[in-house]
């Protein structure tokens, strides 16, 4: 399977639907460990991307750059800026290409992760969105089949959530909750769980902190 402009527009639609659906859940999760705006950030960002979807270029690099810009304009929330950073990093790699192989996905996730890590100055293992992406990168590394990749990514974000749930938050606003964060999902990891599930077109559960 190859990825082109059409793949991206379909993904945008699925992501927007997922965020409309998970809006409250993400705000609530962020409210418990932060300022409660993560649903707002994601929904505003996806809506902004959607507004420009007609004019999305065929050049995958330019297309993703446009998506990143929508996030940097729509809010100053950490998560939006981190996503924009990742998207821009991928966009740079893809500039000039109108289609790529699914097999490249693992590598692109790593590219995004590196830049996001540089931007946020956070370590892996800190219970953030970075840990979700790291799990995805590792699970999809060397995989070539689109379906295998989708399955592996969807499983990876679930496993990461479960694995980090009982750790202490160390980054961002959640850090100040320290002990209280144990047993609660990091909102950014939860959001990435829903993003990956939507991209992979695998069902995301609606229950925060329940067995999955």
């Amino acid at each position, binding site marked *: 399977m190859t990825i082109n402009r059409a793949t991206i527009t379909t993904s945008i639609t699925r992501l927007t639907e997922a965020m409309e659906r998970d809006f409250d859940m993400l705000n609530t999760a962020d409210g418990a460990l932060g*300022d*409660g*705006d993560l649903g707002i950030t994601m929904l505003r960002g996806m809506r902004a991307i959607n507004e420009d979807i007609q004019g999305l270029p065929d050049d995958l690099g330019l297309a993703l750059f446009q998506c990143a*810009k929508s996030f*940097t*304009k*729509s*809010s*100053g*929330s*950490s998560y*939006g*800026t*981190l996503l*924009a*950073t990742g998207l*821009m990093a991928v966009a740079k790699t893809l500039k000039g290409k109108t289609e790529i192989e699914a097999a490249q996905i693992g590598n692109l996730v790593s590219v995004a992760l590196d830049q996001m890590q540089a*931007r*946020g*100055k956070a370590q892996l293992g800190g219970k953030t969105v970075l840990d979700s992406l790291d799990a995805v990168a590792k699970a999809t590394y060397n995989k070539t089949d689109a379906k295998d990749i989708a399955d592996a990514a969807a499983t990876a974000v679930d496993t990461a959530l479960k694995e980090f749930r009982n750790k202490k938050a160390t*980054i*961002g*606003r959640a850090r*100040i909750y320290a002990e209280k964060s144990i047993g609660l999902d990091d909102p950014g990891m939860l959001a990435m769980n829903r993003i990956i599930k939507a991209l992979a077109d695998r069902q995301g559960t609606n229950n925060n902190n329940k067995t999955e």
Partner: protein
Amino acid sequence: MKKILNKPENYVNEMLDGMISAHPEYYNLFGDSGKVVTRAKADKNKKVGIVSGGGSGHLPVFTGYVGRGLLDACAIGDVFASPSAEQMADAIRAADQGAGVLRLYGNYGGDVMNFDMAGDLVEFEDITCTTVLLADDIASAPIEERENRRGVAGMVYAFKLSGAAAEEGRDLDGVTAIAQKAANSCRSIGAALSSCTVPQAGKPTFEIADDEMEMGMGIHGEPGVWRGKLKTADQIANEMLDRLLSDMPLQSGDRVSVMVNSLGATPPEELYILYRIVKQRLEEAGATIIMPLVGRYATSMEMSGVSFTLCKLDDELEKLLKAPCDCPFWKIA
């Protein structure tokens, strides 16, 4: 604590609208976000630009300090929320006169990411940027992890000192060096007596009993070092000074400016009661106080409480501190 407002989602835009129409000789809006403030009369004289930014709800910080001898432009977000990278990029564009732009702001994760991202955005436009982060809140991390501390009222000294340096015509490296020296010379600590209410949250950020205070609390309600019974003014002042002076000891002959700052609701009467002890303690340490600042310089809306900031000065910084500046909230002739 009750607030006078209309729809919470319009709080920041209405505030800026009123602020700019009350002081059109000082402020202007720039760009299409509606939340980037510049000087009304930007003298395009190739001076280094200084921008700051962060969440709203801290007036005069940040936008209030746009003015001669201070900031050139500011991007603000919703209350206690970072502005977007695009807004910050606009502030940088507005401030640029061809001599480069210093980004000078408080060390908060979201603001740092966005200002960095804003730098990436304007890099394409050939604007050179430098960065100095304020990390003056000694209660937010031990001295060994200074770089993790939050930025609070010390910011105001950094605006003033680097603003004066830019006005003098120093180049980007020179202005940046002054800002960094100012940041290194500042230590702050706060104590809160009551919360404030973020308009869109609609309820106080935290609860605190009627006979309690919290030492070391951050300007957004970040937890401090202890919460307990409200102490007397003299006890509070002495503890805050103990903490500041053990973080940055003063020696006989040192010159220091000191800010006794209200977090919002605390009236000047109480600040002056505190200042007695501040003066006494600094003089006991052998230091000379230069231009003490007592008032509301960096606030959290209607939060009740105070912060103290020490800013150690050398000849250069003292001269810059006393240099003229002009904005509706701070005038030195």
